[in-house]
């Protein structure tokens, strides 16, 4: 299945878009999404190890299962305030 991943800040600029569609198997987890995203956009390797993930606007663990309706976002280290 294809799942959309929202990207921000440096990740958005590296990937060339604020949303990318990532191919994963049914029942995939956030960890699977990360692997697929890295394969699609290898230059994200500088950011991915330090980033968190959010599913439906909540921080999500690597083992969180996602589906096509999930709002998945890559959260690079934050720098607000």
């Amino acid at each position, binding site marked *: 299945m294809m799942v959309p991943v929202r990207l921000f*800040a440096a990740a958005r600029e590296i990937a060339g878009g604020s949303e990318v569609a990532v191919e994963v198997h049914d029942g995939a987890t956030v960890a699977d999404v990360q692997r697929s995203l890295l394969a699609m956009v290898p230059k994200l390797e500088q950011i991915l190890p330090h980033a968190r993930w959010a599913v439906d606007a909540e921080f999500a663990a690597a083992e969180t299962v996602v589906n096509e309706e999930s709002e998945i976002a890559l959260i*690079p280290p934050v*720098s607000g*305030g």
Partner: protein
Amino acid sequence: MIELTNQPIDSSALLAKASGPEAGAVVLFVGTTRELTEGRRTVMLNYEAYDEMAEAKLAELEDEARRRWPLVECIIVHRLGRVPLAEASVAIAVSTPHRADAFAAGQWLIDTLKRDVPIWKQEHWADGTSEWVHPGTNQANPS
């Protein structure tokens, strides 16, 4: 009360709004764009947010702060987009009956905001380059 805005922040107005007869103390924290960082000169900061989640996290911060301290008012405003030197990117106003709680809550709110709220700043340096700030990623992230 929490808000994301693209407009300049009126800190004085927030201070007035947080004040009230139940409060003996009002603490206002304002984060501003600083010129010097590790020897480099900033001309401007630019902020981006994952809006829906940032608003949700700011609301959670207020809820948690109200659980921990007897807050009368709690106002958190974060500006997005371009923030020139010395202007406010974030303002937090808290009021409490007694001052120790106001100081503690204000400190906790800004420290936790900086750790958990999905907002990012982009440094625009005097040499014309710019980069997103992602603490812990050892490389610069040039834009």
